[in-house]
């Protein structure tokens, strides 16, 4: 019996999956936007057009030019360089938060599905309980105790992501546990951990990847919100939310200081959402229906 998972090791299936993707406008546009910002963030480690952290009052509030591609802010910082550094911080926080959610949530969800009974009930009710603590509330609690910082944002968004992934993994895994190929694996003497690793996880991987892109985009929004109110990334390291917070004072004189980081956030989130939509369209319709349409916001 062939295992019915979509990411088969067969190279042909990979190619046909990608070919299908290239015909999906959502996948192509979303992928291109996401790739652009990821490249921007990665390049910022080795190169930025100007030193984003040095103050240069003589060059403050310069308009867009060939020297300053997006102009400068009230301290004379080059906005394009700030956007590059901001991309690095926003993407890093959101990515690690998704990682925390997936690394803890998926095993918990799979465990709940495999064992059932009181363990399933306990894991799911704990998940419901965590939902009562949106990222901003967790961040407020952490900041009150340990002071503000990017780690707060990562932990707060990450904690909220755990039940999102746990719930999704449990739901998808539960429907697989009744399938014939799992029954065959059980009859061949495999334990629940081995079945989960060898059969359940490969079959729910696509679903998790799509939810990952949704949570990633929501993580970018949540990080921006937390940095905006001073609970996330701290100066001098720029983040998009923090740039917006500083721009508010200059809204009348230099609205571009608010518009540019805002557009960066919108484009990144839009890109990730389109990528998620594209991936979802390429999935099996039965799996598609189990995905959350609106996503699960963290902030």
């Amino acid at each position: 019996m062939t295992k019915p998972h979509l990411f088969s090791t067969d190279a042909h299936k990979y190619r046909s999956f990608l070919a299908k993707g290239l015909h999906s406008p959502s996948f192509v546009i979303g992928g291109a936007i996401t790739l652009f910002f990821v490249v921007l963030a990665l390049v910022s480690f080795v190169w930025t057009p100007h030193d984003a952290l040095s103050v240069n009052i003589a060059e403050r509030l310069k308009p867009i030019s060939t020297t300053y591609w997006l102009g400068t802010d009230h301290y004379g910082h080059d906005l394009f360089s700030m956007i590059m550094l901001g991309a690095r911080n926003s993407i890093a926080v959101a990515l690690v938060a998704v990682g925390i959610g997936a690394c803890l949530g998926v095993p918990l969800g799979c465990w709940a599905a495999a064992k059932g009974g009181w363990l399933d009930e306990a894991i799911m009710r704990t998940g419901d309980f965590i939902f009562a603590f949106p990222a901003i509330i967790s961040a407020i609690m952490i900041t009150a105790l340990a002071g503000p910082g990017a780690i707060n944002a990562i932990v707060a968004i990450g904690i909220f992501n755990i039940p999102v992934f746990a719930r999704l993994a449990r739901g998808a895994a539960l429907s697989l546990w009744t399938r014939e190929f799992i029954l065959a694996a059980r009859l061949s003497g495999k334990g629940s951990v081995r079945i989960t690793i060898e059969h359940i996880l490969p079959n729910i991987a696509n679903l998790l990847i799509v939810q990952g892109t949704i949570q990633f985009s929501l993580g970018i929004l949540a990080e921006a919100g937390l940095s905006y109110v001073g609970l996330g990334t701290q100066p001098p390291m720029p983040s998009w939310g923090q740039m917006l917070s500083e721009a508010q004072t200059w809204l009348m004189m230099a609205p571009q200081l608010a518009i540019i980081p805002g557009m960066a956030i919108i484009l990144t989130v839009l890109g990730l959402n389109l990528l998620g939509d594209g991936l979802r369209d390429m999935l099996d319709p039965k799996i598609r229906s189990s995905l959350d349409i609106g996503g699960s916001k963290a902030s």
Partner: protein
Amino acid sequence: MIIYSLRRLASLCVTLVAASLFIFAVMEILPGDPAQLILGINAQEDTLAALREQLGLNLPLASRYWLWISGMLQGDFGISYTYSVPVTELISERLTISLPLALMALALSTLIALPLGILAASNHGRWPDVSLIGATQIGIAIPNFWFAMLLVLVFAVTLHWLPSGGFPGWEAGLWPAIKALLLPAIALALPQASILVRIMRSSMLEVLHEDYMRTARAKGLNLRQTLARHGLRNALIPVITIMGLQFSFLLAGTVIIENVFSLPGLGRLVFQAINQRDLITVKAVIMLLVATVILVNFLVDITYGLIDPRLHRRQGSQ
């Protein structure tokens, strides 16, 4: 319905107790010595001892938790360390801004989303549907605080129609107060409405293909009558679920938006309290916000039962 409601009520109580225990543990046990955290590392030992006495930190943990929880149930959240006034007073003062703001945003998003969702579904695949889907995709991606800044730029700074921030107080009259809350409410409502339009649309599309809808049409009802009598009620179930889930985000959004508009609501209070290390106020506001989220989810569950009687019959028989 009664058994269903009682079961949900029991679950509500357990979750509330668990939440209070968790908040108590994080805010009172994790820091080690809350008095030290409030006063800082340079505090004198006698000042620390006096604060420990004042906060009741010398009592056993169980007694401290009991005092906190029983006080809260009687509306006593303790005395704010910074303001030296009862926290209940501070909270009730700030709630007169945060609560109307959240409710206005909820009402606005519902008023925008439901008709647009129905419009998109009844024009499935045609230009109103396609353009609405595109618009909601962008609406979901816009951070509400950024949208708030744009609204200020257009409606306050450029057009001078509405105030850019601050709150005149309800005593200044209903209209000035509502005017001050209008831009924040619109900023909060946009992303919520974008999500709700999509949910309403997909839910309505599903309902439109149900057999009972076809039967209603076959009996001679036109599309509008069929939607009003049979479609809307069924399509609303997933919408209410998402509205319940979104409420916590609305509350979180309120905390952030209050900072954009310098509104002296709960959000501003909690940030001031953090800066002044007023743990008592922080703890009380967090408990209130979390309890509100839990309570709203409970109300959503009860509303399900009212809208869809099959649900509580099914749960009751289990």
